[in-house]
């Protein structure tokens, strides 16, 4: 492996009005390496990559970029792509309705003569690129028919079509389950062998540890250190660099006393697909959560976990919902989200931006939306009451925002998540259905969210938690149900849970389904 420096970013400083996002950052990437970039949200990782890819054009920042030994002055993404630098953002840039092949060559179409698409070449070459990334799908199917994991691979195929030299992946595994993540990481390693250098931004330190040759840690817009293969790389070491302090425990200590006499129960819950009412999505799911208990639901992407929580929450998902819910032995009927809220349910969505928050509206408007009755009377909102309650939530959930009237979209991911939690606590729920509550937020904010979850349980609420990070479920839950293909495949107690026995249940469940 060569040790030649492919990319050098020297003394990059980028100032947004009022904030110094990057302060004299220097950063080197060696050829044929996988270089990980880690840091908390707001540490400047994305800004640095935006400088590199030309989103922040030359002149909008200070410092210089050398790629392949030559200075670069990118004025836009097209310039950087022309040099072989391709960035894949967390939000995939695919057109769902177009075919895989069309997406692979989007903006870079294979032409026969000028402006006329050569379909034969498009499909032929797409197939070649797809096999290169290990994706065996028909290139003529629309991208929306693929799962997120496969869509990610289509993005990489698209990058390969542009003769990529340096591939940048921003949180590539955030939406993937462990199996898909493994596959993606293996692909990066094999691309490395075929000569493609990559930069990977990730919050998942175990992945970073596994594939990265070098790791650069950013904190508060400055480079803290770069760890190479000579250094001893441990998770604790990386976390220390990221947060600037030791984090002895990733999970807060648990002091819980569940009350098994008061239970939230779901019995024989079956749900059919929302679009295709002939297809069963959930079959005969039965589980229970005691008051003061945190219960996890593990499973692979597509196992039906999100659909399960949503269908419980006033049938916000699915068709032909059957089965019953009980709270303290009393049947709980909720046919709409508003009934669900009124009966004491809350659903914290996994998709903060898409269906959780109104990004353009203020923190306060978001916080009080699900329970406006509490801050007014006679169908009018009392601004004073609203503000008092908002302030209380802001302190309670340690939401870092200049004031309550700030648009939520301006806050960091972790703080947006806290706004969402605050919003649902404001609705005074007894049962919390939480879907990936720590997706895409940094280590420090995660810890705070864990503390909040613990507190909610201590207050005697029932918490049902879906997460794709098994370590999180193991660290947080009293019991874990394993869901596989819309059924409960088994249950493990928190103390005895390991990634291995959860995985074993998932696989067993999948096998039973086939039989």
């Amino acid at each position: 492996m060569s040790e030649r420096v492919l990319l050098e970013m020297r003394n990059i400083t980028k100032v947004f009005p009022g904030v110094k996002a990057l302060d004299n950052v220097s950063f080197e990437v060696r050829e044929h390496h996988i270089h990980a970039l880690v840091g908390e949200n707001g540490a400047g990782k994305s800004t640095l990559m935006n400088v590199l890819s030309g989103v922040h054009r030359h002149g909008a920042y200070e410092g210089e970029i050398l790629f392949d030994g030559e200075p670069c002055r990118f004025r836009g993404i097209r310039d950087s792509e022309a040099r072989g630098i391709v960035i894949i953002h967390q939000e995939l840039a695919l057109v769902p309705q177009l075919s895989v092949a069309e997406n692979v060559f989007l903006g870079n179409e294979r032409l026969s003569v000028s402006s006329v698409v050569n379909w034969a070449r498009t499909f032929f070459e797409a197939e070649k690129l797809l096999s290169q990334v290990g994706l065996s799908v028909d290139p003529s199917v629309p991208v929306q028919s693929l799962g997120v994991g496969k869509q990610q691979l289509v993005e990489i195929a698209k990058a390969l079509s542009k003769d990529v030299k340096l591939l940048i992946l921003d949180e590539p595994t955030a939406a993937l389950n462990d199996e898909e993540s493994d596959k993606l990481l293996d692909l990066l390693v094999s691309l490395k062998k075929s000569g493609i250098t990559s930069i990977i931004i990730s919050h998942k330190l175990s992945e970073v540890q596994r594939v990265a040759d070098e790791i650069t840690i950013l904190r508060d817009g400055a480079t803290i250190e770069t760890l190479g293969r000579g250094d001893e790389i441990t998770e604790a070491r990386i976390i220390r660099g990221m947060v600037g302090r030791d984090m002895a425990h990733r999970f807060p200590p648990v002091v819980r006393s569940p009350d098994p006499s008061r239970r939230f129960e779901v019995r024989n819950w079956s749900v059919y697909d929302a679009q295709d009412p002939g297809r069963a999505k959930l079959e005969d799911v039965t589980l229970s959560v005691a008051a003061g208990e945190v219960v996890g639901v593990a499973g692979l992407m597509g196992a039906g976990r999100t659909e399960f929580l949503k269908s419980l929450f006033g049938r916000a998902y699915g068709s032909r919902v059957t089965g019953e819910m009980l709270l303290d032995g009393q049947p709980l009927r909720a046919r709409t989200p508003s009934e669900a809220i009124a009966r004491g349910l809350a659903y914290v969505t996994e998709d903060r931006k898409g269906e959780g928050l109104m990004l353009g509206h203020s923190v306060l408007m978001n916080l009080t939306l699900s329970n406006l009755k509490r801050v007014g009377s006679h169908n009018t909102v009392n601004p004073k009451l609203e503000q008092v309650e908002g302030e209380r939530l802001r302190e309670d959930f340690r939401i870092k925002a200049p004031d309550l009237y700030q648009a939520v979209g301006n806050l960091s991911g972790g703080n947006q998540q806290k706004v969402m939690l605050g919003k649902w606590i404001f609705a005074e729920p007894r049962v919390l259905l939480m879907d990936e509550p720590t997706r895409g937020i940094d280590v420090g904010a995660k810890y705070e969210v864990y503390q909040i979850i613990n507190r909610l349980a201590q207050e005697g609420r029932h918490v049902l938690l879906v997460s794709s990070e098994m370590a999180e479920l193991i660290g947080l839950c009293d019991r874990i149900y394993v869901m596989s293909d819309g059924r409960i495949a088994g249950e493990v107690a928190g103390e005895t849970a390991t990634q291995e026995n959860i995985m074993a249940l998932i696989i067993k469940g999948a096998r039973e389904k086939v039989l």
Partner: protein
Amino acid sequence: MNSLRKAAQSNLRQYTMGVALVVLVLVLQFVTGGTMLRPLNISNLLHQNMYVFVLGMGMLLCILTGGNIDLSVGAVVAFTGAICGVLMVDLRMSTLPAVLIVLGAGLLVGAWQGFWIAVVKVHPWITTLAGSLLFRGLAQVILDGRSIGPFPEPFQFLATGFFTDVAGGSGVHLLSILIGAAGTLVFVGVVLFFHFRNRKLGLPTSTPAQLALKIILVALFVNLLAWRLAGYKGISFAMLLLVGLILLFSFITKKSVFGRHLYAMGGNIKAAKLSGINTARLMFTVYVISALMATVAAILVTARLNAATPKAGVGYETDAIAACFLGGASISGGSGTVFGVLVGALIMGVLNNGMSLLGVSIDWQAAIKGLVVLVAVAFDMYFKNRQRSSI
């Protein structure tokens, strides 16, 4: 003084459209040789364009839900106007029951469209496009292509009735000046009350300079308007009705839970649904309100023209939609204010009126209005973007 200037500057940038309106009025005042701001003309301008204000506010609620518009309002004006005609001219019904029946018909029209939009889930654009054909056609059918009139006195009063003066024929209409002054006092009182209450409670308030500027501008506007109107016949019933509607819609958008839900829905419809908001019911309600406002507009238009005609309300929907977007409403929903719609409607009204005074032909009027709307919204976006990037 310095802070006042700063406040003025920030407000100027914030209210580009207000400035555009003032400039427009001054230019037209100049080129029409002073006719523009004559008392008679101001009075006419308001009455002729009352429909833009009324329809614009109903349209705003539709737009807030997520850029949905109501394309049928022009046709609904013709349809409900036609019913007015049949009831009062053909059937000789008296004004009050006829108006109530027509408003009821407007409700039904709204419920009809609301049903297709909220229950069957046909897209509002398609539903109201169909509505614009349907109700225009029904208006033709009901009137059999005729224009009918005249209408009874009390009905005409709704649109063109002025209040008799307290001073009694002394040249200047004292009552309207008094109403203007009283309105100003109430306004100042209310604004100051809320300002100090909010400050005491620690809610966000504007700076004293901004507050002063706001009071000065509104007081100037209201009193100048009252003074000019006093030079003609003073204040009419329709103007008071408009003021009432403005207060009602301001309350709906600023204070009510319903209004808050509209903004939430436009901000993120999925989040709104998962927050327990019944978005289908909201859609139903806004289209009922829009149809009801179209009916109010129909009553005003029919009464003013003293005739019901199947050609009434042609192109009204574009004026109302333009007023909303000129007033800064967002095409994706979730933002827009009643105040903005008023400014937008005034711009449309001043354009309509000014070009008529200049003798511009109807065809050119439409073309010019189109250009003005395009350029004005483009400027507004440009300024807002610049402002955002300078924060």
